[in-house]
Structure formats: structure tokens, C-alpha cells
């Protein structure tokens, strides 16, 4: 049996992934802060075919709770996969007004997940699992609209690449996922969104990437080309752009 630990389980993308793996017959452990919401998704997953689905508490800013997650996973049998959907993105203007907010952004999007993954890595190695790290195209280049968040996601992507290097040696794996704009509560009603993808599409792309042991994916795929262009704009020009 395969068990998925899904962190940030209340996000629309996480919910879509949880449902997709549940209907394949995998077990899911949903971790996050909104216990009531996670319990609802867990029940839904059970009725869609998950042999086991439960909710556990997880706060990226509170590492004291991390060992309990490890213990819970150790009590399962079979493959252990970990999918990380956590992150927070207050508007850059709010951050500029209150720089202390940056600590939270970094903790949610980078240091919290990374500390947890480092704790879980030996188990993932032993159980030949896959880590799915959901970053963002925002991490590919610092842009005026969200560069604190982008910096955290860039750090996360670098960590993921190192983790992949480590896990590969043990026959385990790590996939870095970079979604473009996804139709979730985070993007709902925000100006300037285009080519917005449904969360189910992202979940399907993730599962395909896990199955094929892909290293880095953009989802939907065309973001690879959009970001290729954005990354190659010379800094001298990019610094004047507002993309």
C-alpha cells in the first residue's frame, strides 16, 4: 500500500490530489491547520476509495509538532509519499508596510517545509517513496509583485533539487512542481490572471510526473516556455518590466 502525507491539505490543489490518489486506492493523511476542513476531505477520500484517510495537525511555523508526523508515518506500511502544498503569499504591498510579515512567508513557504522534509527524508528513503514539492513559477525570477514569496519558493526549489540528489541514491525520488496560475481561492478575483488551470489538472500532472519519475515539471506544461522566456530576459531590461 502507498500512503500519502499531504501537507497544506486544505488547499484546492491538495484536495484535488488527495481525491485522485484516494480513488486509486492509496491511503491519505491530510495535514494542516483547519481540522474541521481536513476531516471533511478525509471522509470524502475514504468514500472515494482510500483504505485509510485521516486528518492531523500541522503548522509550518511550529516545528515542535513535526516529530508527531514522522511517528504517524512510521506506523504505516509500504511506500510513503509526501506532498507539500504549503506556502503563504500576502500582497507585496502589505509586506512593504510590515516587513515582519516576511518571517511568516519564509516559514510557511520555505523553512517550515524544509525542516520537516529533512526530518522525514530517512523514512522516505527507507520506504522508497517520492517527495512532491510544490513550488511556484514565482520562484523562477524575482518580480515586483511578489518577490518575498518568490525568494522563499526559489530557496525551496534549490532545496528540492538537493533532496532529489540525496533521495535518488537510495532509490527514492523527489519531484519539483511549478504551477502557473491555478484556479484556487488564492487567485480568485485577482487582476491579471490568465490561462488559469483547474486544480484537478494540476493533480493529474503531478501524478503523471510521480509515475514517470520526472524531476521538475511545470503545470500546465506551457508554463515551461513562458518561464523560459521570462528567465532569459536580460536583467537590464527585466528590472524595468512589471510582468
Amino acid at each position, binding site marked *: 500500500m502507498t500512503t500519502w502525507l499531504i501537507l497544506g491539505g486544505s488547499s484546492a490543489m491538495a484536495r484535488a490530489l488527495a481525491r485522485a490518489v484516494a480513488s486509486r486506492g492509496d491511503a491519505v493523511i491530510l495535514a494542516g491547520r483547519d481540522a474541521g476542513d481536513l476531516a471533511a476531505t478525509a471522509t470524502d477520500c475514504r468514500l*472515494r476509495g482510500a483504505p485509510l484517510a485521516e486528518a492531523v495537525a500541522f503548522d509550518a511555523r511550529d516545528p515542535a509538532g513535526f516529530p508527531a508526523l514522522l511517528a504517524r508515518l512510521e506506523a504505516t506500511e509500504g511506500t510513503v509519499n509526501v506532498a507539500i502544498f504549503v506556502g503563504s503569499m500576502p500582497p507585496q504591498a502589505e509586506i512593504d508596510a510590515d516587513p515582519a510579515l516576511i518571517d511568516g512567508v519564509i516559514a510557511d513557504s520555505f523553512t517550515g517545509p524544509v525542516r520537516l522534509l529533512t526530518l522525514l527524508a530517512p523514512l522516505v528513503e527507507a520506504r522508497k517513496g517520492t517527495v512532491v514539492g510544490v513550488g511556484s513559477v514565482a520562484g523562477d525570477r524575482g518580480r515586483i509583485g511578489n518577490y518575498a514569496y518568490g525568494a522563499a519558493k526559489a530557496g525551496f526549489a534549490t532545496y528540492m533539487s538537493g533532496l532529489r540528489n540525496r533521495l535518488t541514491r537510495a532509490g527514492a525520488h523527489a519531484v519539483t512542481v511549478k504551477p502557473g496560475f491555478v484556479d484556487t481561492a488564492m487567485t480568485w478575483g485577482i487582476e491579471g490572471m490568465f490561462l488559469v488551470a483547474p486544480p484537478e489538472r494540476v493533480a493529474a500532472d503531478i501524478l503523471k510526473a510521480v509515475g514517470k519519475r520526472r524531476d521538475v515539471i511545470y503545470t500546465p506544461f506551457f508554463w515551461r516556455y513562458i518561464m523560459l522566456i521570462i528567465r532569459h530576459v536580460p536583467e537590464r531590461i527585466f528590472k524595468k518590466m512589471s510582468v
Partner: protein
Amino acid sequence: MQTRRLDLTGWGRVLRATSDVARPERFSTLARAMEEAPAPAMGQRRSYGDAPLNDKGRALDMTRLDRILGFDEEAGILTVEGGARIGELNALLAPRGWLLPVLPGTGFATVGGAVAMDVHGKNHHHAGSFGQHLAGIRLLTPKGEKRAGPDKQKDLFRATLGGLGQTGVVASAEIRLLKAKGSVMMVTEHRIRDWDEHIAALDTSEATYSVGWIDATATGAGLGRGILEEGETGAGLVPPAKRGRKVPIDAPGAALSPPVVRLFNAAYWRRVPMRGRTVVKPIEDFFFPLDRIYDWNRLYGKRGFHQFQCVVPLGQRDRLRDILETVAQSGAASPLAVLKRMGPGRAGMMSFPMEGYTLAVDLRAAPGPESLVARLEGMVRDAEGRIYLAKDSLGSAEAIQAMYPERKAWAKIVAKHDPEGALATDLVRRLKLRETE
């Protein structure tokens, strides 16, 4: 809560609205939205007219709250969020031997929409309406959360079933399921030559599910010509359903022009051999035949279309024949009309069903069917019948109010729970349904 300004239509795409829409993904955000700025709920907008619309106002899109919250296999009670789609629930339940007790003609309808319209299915003559199978609902009213059910908050419950979303947002519902024999349908199809034969066939049918498809373009001796479908659930194997198709663009106005429609209808009819036939179909193909073309409403082109559905008491079948004749002669009718026998079952004060016969017809929006619908409305009223608000877009306040005798009592209960009128929709305003004098 973050909102998004959207241009919206009902399924018929004639009536339009621009609204600021919030789309909560969790119960807690839904509850907060109802506290901060109560607004009418929207499901999948499969109602044809303006029932789910709130022009220049706010709306709550419920489609992200679509989870199963519990299943008591012993009691056969399923608890689901209001935004869950009927068809998806059906696909999950059927392989386990369960069936939703009432299935409307589209699987895209949400549980909340099914509650708010107290929808009926092809088994209405046996099983009654959707609301009659509810063990309870969790409702967020502008004045707070309420639990209602057959023995709890009975007035509120009766005002909510078929209540057009006016008492609050249905966050979740507990539905009593039926046992199914398996995940396929055994469907018997008979050719029906005319109106009298159609009525007689519906009257004598002993099937659990039955529906008459009428060629609403046939006039004269062929009036009421069509196919009677009878269905029972069964176990067996059928080839996997083909993937749904999409209509790529708005069809040019001619796609459903009268000659095309007549040809289509004749072909549909001839498909069934003279002696009739029995076929095995996937459940969804029997209940949701139109869903296989994902956005078939676009076949009517940019201008959209109207649907007209009425029910008349058993004794008024001749008047219903006149109604069909008026439609057929107008030349405005579309490919498929539906004739069903209804039982007396209805769960709420504003529910549509009454014991009798119900007829549903699509009408092209151009040239304007306003005068035709006005005439039909009068005929329905004379027949002591009723027009279905899930389909209506052209009805007039006076006539419609006369068809819903409990309306005023309903409006008073609604006013208690939504005194500011925050949940009023375009339909409710157009038909002045919430007036209490």
C-alpha cells in the same frame, strides 16, 4: 471575502447578470461570507432562467464545497456538501449498489440546487420529489446557522425545500439513498404514435422510471408522437461510456432551425424499431442523456433559448394537449420535449410537482417567444396547473403567484430568516415572490 466580478447566465443563456461572486472552498470561509455579506447561493446554474442570478449584487458560488461528509451504510444516509454534483455522487454510489432517490435530467445539478428547486425525476410518480428524501439539512441563514429536518424546524424546512435559496445557503444535506440492483439500466423503448397513445402508455406503465420524449414539431394526427422510455436498475456489463463532447463555439443561428429540428426528431423516432426494444445502458446515459454533450445549450446560438415546463392535474390532460398543440403550431419548438406523469409528492411550500402530467419544451429565443409564453401561461392557469420556476424566464408575477397557493405564507417565513432581503434573486424580484401583502 475576495470576490470576482462575473457575467453570468442561466442555462438558457437569455437572461444575464453581472455579480460579485465569492467562491468559498471551506465551510469556515462560507460561514464567514454569510456573516459578513449574506448573498444568494449559486450551484451549476443549470436552471434555465434567472433563478440563480443576482444582477448587480453578490452571489456565493457553492461548487467548491462538494465533498461527501459521511455515509451511514446501515441507514443508507449520505451526508454531502451543497455544491456536490448529483452525477458525480451517482457515479460513486452506483458501483456500491446505491442510488440517489431522485435524479433530475442533468447530473450537473448540485445538491443545493436540487434542494432549492425540490427537483423531480423519472420516478416521481412513485418516489416523489428530492426534498421528501432528506433526513436533514444544515442551513446558513443571514441570522445564523440552523439545522432543519422533517422533525426539526419544520416550517423552515418546508420553506427551504423548493424555496429558491431564499431561506439561506444549504451547506450540507442528509439524503436517504435507495438500493440499486447494479450500475446499469434496463431500458425499454416504445414508439408512440400520438397524444392519446402517449397518455395511455404513461398511465398504464408499471415501470419504476418512465419518461415520454415528444417530437414537439409534429402537428395534426402526429401530435404527441414520440418514444416512451421505461427503466429499471439492473446488474450487468456495458461498454464504458464515451467521453462527453463539447460544442466548440456558439452554433450559428441555423443549427437548430425548424427543418433541422424536424429532421432530427424524425430520426430520433425511427431509431426505435416498430415493435420497440430493450437495451442496457449505463445509469448516467438513461438519467442524464443530454449531459453527453457538455454544453449543448450553445447549439441554440448566441441568443440562447427558453424552456417552458408546466404541470396540470390529471383531469386536465386535454388542456395539456392544447398547450402542446399551441407550441407545435408556433414553430418555435425544439428537438425534444418531455412528457411525464407526476405523482402528488412535493416537499416544500413552493415545490413544483402536483399529481398530473408535466410537459417541458425548449423554445428558440428568436423570434421572440414572449407572446407565445404569455398565451401558454394563461392556458396553464386555466388548467389549474403550474409553471416550473427552475425553467421559467418569461413568466409574469400575477399568473405565477396564482399557481403557488402557499407563496404568501412562504414569503412570511422567508422574511423571518432573511429580513433584509439579502438573498433575493432576479427571479424572485421579477415574479415578486417575496411580497408579503
